[in-house]
C-alpha cells in the first residue's frame, strides 16, 4: 500500500518534471518551470524517505549524506562564475553518472545471481554508460578548465583500440547475461568503462567539448533511464528519457550551428594542430588606440556588438552594457549579435549579457542580424574569433568550413578587441584581422571596453553640460 502511494507521488513528480521543461520555453514562464521541477523533486524525495525497510541508522546515514551533498552543492551553485559554467556542468554530469553507476553496481551485488537476462543486459549497459560518462565528463571538464591540454591527442590505431575496449565491454555484458552470477566480471567491466570514457575524449579538441558534454548528458540520461528499468522506477525512466532527449537535441543544435556531423565530432579529432594556414596572407594589420576607436563609435549611426568567448574570460559583460548605454545616449543605434556557438556553451553569451542586465530582446540571433551587416557602420567584435572567421564561407580546407558565421566583414568598418593575434578555440588564423577595413584594438576586453565607455560618455559630458 505504502509503496503504491509512493508511486503515485512519483507520478506527480514526473508530471512536475515535464511541466518544468515545458515552461522553459520562454523567459517569463521559466521561473515557474524551475518551481515545478523543485516541487516534483521535493515530493519524490519525501516519498522515498517513507519507503518501507529504511532502518534507523539508515536515516542517520541518509541525513549525513544529504547534508554533505548540500554543503558541497550550495557553494558550487552560488560561487561558480558564469564563465566556468561549461566545466561546472561537465563536472556535475560526472557526479550524476557516478551516482547512477554506483546504484547500478550495488543493485547488481544485492540481487545477483537471481537476475533475469533482460535486466542483466540493461544493468550491464547502465554500468558501462555510467562509468564511461563519469570519466568522460571529468576529462571534458579538465580540458575546459585547461587543466588538461585542449588540443586533441591522437596516436596510431586509436580507433582500433577504442573499438577493442568497447568490444570487450560488450562481451562482458553478454557473458553476464548468460551467467549473471559471475560477479568477478563487474570490476573488469567497470575498469573498461572508466578507460573507455577517458580514451573517447582524449582525441577530441577543446572546441568540440561543449558538443561532447551535451552528448554525455544524453548518455547520462540513457543510463538513468536504464537504472529506472532495473529498479522498476518509472520516475527514473521519465527523468532519464527527458534528460537524454535534452542532451541529444542540444548536441544536434550545436553540430548544426557548426555544420558538423555527429560522427565527425566523435571520431574526427576536430581542431588537430595545424600548420599555420597558408590561405591567409599575413598582410598588414591596422591597429587603433581606444581614443580613435571611441571616436569612430560615436560617429557611427549604428553599431553591432559581437561578443565572444573573450568577453566571458575578461568578465567584460557589465562594461559592455555601460558602453552600449553610453553609445545609446549619443544617439547611436546599438544591437548585439549572438552567434549560436559563441562562447563555450549554448546560450553562453545570453546568460552573461542577461547577468549584466542587457534586456534579452535586444540580443539578435545570427539569422536575424546577418542581413543587416551591409547597412552597419561599425561592428565591434569583442573577444570573438571563430564565429566571425570568413574562412568558414570560402576556404574549403579550413576545419570550420561550412559553419554559418556572423558576416561582419560585410559591414563598413570592423573593430576587433582582443589581446593578441592569437587564434581562437578552433586554432586557426582569421583573415578578417588582415582585412583593410578592420581595426585591431589590442588589450584585455574589460580594460578596453571600459576605456571606450569612459571616452564615449566623457566626451558627451564636456559638450552636453
Amino acid at each position, binding site marked *: 500500500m505504502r509503496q503504491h502511494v509512493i508511486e503515485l507521488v512519483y507520478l506527480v513528480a514526473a508530471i512536475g518534471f515535464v511541466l518544468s521543461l515545458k515552461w522553459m520555453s520562454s523567459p517569463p514562464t521559466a521561473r515557474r518551470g*524551475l518551481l515545478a521541477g523543485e516541487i516534483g*523533486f521535493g515530493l519524490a524525495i519525501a516519498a522515498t524517505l517513507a519507503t518501507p525497510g529504511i532502518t534507523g541508522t539508515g536515516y542517520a546515514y541518509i541525513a549525513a549524506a544529504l547534508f554533505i551533498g548540500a554543503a558541497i552543492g550550495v557553494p558550487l551553485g552560488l560561487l561558480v562564475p558564469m564563465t566556468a559554467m561549461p566545466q561546472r556542468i561537465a563536472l556535475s554530469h560526472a557526479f550524476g553518472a557516478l551516482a547512477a553507476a554506483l546504484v547500478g553496481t550495488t543493485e547488481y551485488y544485492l540481487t545477483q545471481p537471481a537476475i533475469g537476462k533482460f535486466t542483466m543486459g540493461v544493468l550491464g549497459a547502465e554500468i558501462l554508460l555510467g562509468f564511461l560518462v563519469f570519466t568522460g565528463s571529468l576529462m571534458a571538464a579538465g580540458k575546459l578548465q585547461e587543466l588538461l591540454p585542449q588540443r586533441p591527442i591522437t596516436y596510431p590505431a586509436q580507433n582500433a583500440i577504442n573499438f577493442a575496449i568497447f568490444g570487450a565491454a560488450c562481451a562482458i555484458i553478454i557473458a553476464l547475461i548468460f551467467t549473471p552470477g559471475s560477479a568477478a566480471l563487474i570490476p573488469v567491466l567497470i575498469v573498461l568503462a572508466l578507460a573507455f570514457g577517458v580514451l573517447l575524449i582524449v582525441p577530441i579538441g577543446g572546441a568540440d567539448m561543449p558538443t561532447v558534454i551535451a552528448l554525455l548528458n544524453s548518455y547520462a540520461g540513457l543510463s538513468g533511464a536504464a537504472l529506472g528499468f532495473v529498479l522498476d522506477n518509472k520516475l527514473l525512466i521519465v527523468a532519464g528519457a527527458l534528460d537524454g532527449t535534452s542532451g541529444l537535441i542540444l548536441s544536434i543544435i550545436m553540430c548544426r550551428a557548426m555544420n558538423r556531423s555527429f560522427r565527425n565530432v566523435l571520431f574526427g579529432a576536430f581542431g588537430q594542430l595545424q600548420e599555420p594556414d597558408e590561405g591567409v596572407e599575413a598582410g598588414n594589420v591596422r591597429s587603433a588606440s581606444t581614443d580613435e576607436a571611441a571616436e569612430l563609435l560615436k560617429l557611427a549611426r549604428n553599431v553591432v556588438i559581437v561578443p565572444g568567448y573573450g568577453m566571458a574570460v575578461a568578465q567584460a559583460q557589465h562594461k559592455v552594457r555601460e558602453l552600449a548605454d553610453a553609445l545609446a545616449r549619443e544617439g547611436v543605434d546599438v544591437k548585439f549579435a549572438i552567434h549560436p556557438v559563441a562562447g563555450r556553451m549554448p546560450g553562453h553569451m545570453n546568460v552573461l549579457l542577461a547577468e549584466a542586465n542587457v534586456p534579452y530582446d535586444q540580443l539578435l540571433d545570427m539569422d536575424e542580424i546577418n542581413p543587416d551587416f551591409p547597412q552597419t557602420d561599425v561592428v565591434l567584435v569583442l573577444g570573438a574569433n571563430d564565429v566571425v572567421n570568413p574562412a568558414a564561407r570560402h576556404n574549403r580546407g579550413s576545419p570550420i568550413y561550412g559553419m554559418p558565421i556572423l558576416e561582419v566583414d560585410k559591414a563598413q568598418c570592423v573593430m576587433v578587441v582582443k589581446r593578441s593575434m592569437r587564434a581562437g578555440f578552433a586554432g586557426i588564423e582569421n583573415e578578417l584581422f588582415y582585412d583593410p577595413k578592420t581595426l585591431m584594438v589590442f588589450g584585455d576586453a574589460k580594460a578596453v571596453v571600459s576605456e571606450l565607455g569612459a571616452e564615449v560618455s566623457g566626451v558627451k559630458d564636456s559638450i552636453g553640460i
Partner: protein
Amino acid sequence: MSTETIITSLFIFALAGLLGLEVIRRVPKLLHTPLMALTNALSAIALVGSIVILGRQESTYATILGFIAVVCSTINVVGGFLITDKMLRMFRRRPDPGAVNGRRDGRP
C-alpha cells in the same frame, strides 16, 4: 523484472522520450544554458534509488556505495537548482526606465 514490466517500462520510456523531444525543441537558444543546468538537477533524481540503498543498509558494501551516491546526487540537485535560479533571475525583458539613462550600472 517480468516481461510485462519491461514492456510497461518501454511504453513509459517511449512516451517520455517523445514528450521530451516536443518540449525541449521549443526551448529558445536564449535559455539553453539554464536548460542544461535544470536537466542536470532533474537527472539527479537517481537520488531516490540511492536513498533506498543507503537506508536499507543491506551490506557494508551497499552502505558505502550508497553513501557516495547520495552525496554525489545531492551535490547535483542542490547545485543545479541554485544555478538555474541564479541564471533565470538575470533574464530581463525591457530595461527599467532608469537603466537606460545610466543611473544603474547593471552590476549585481
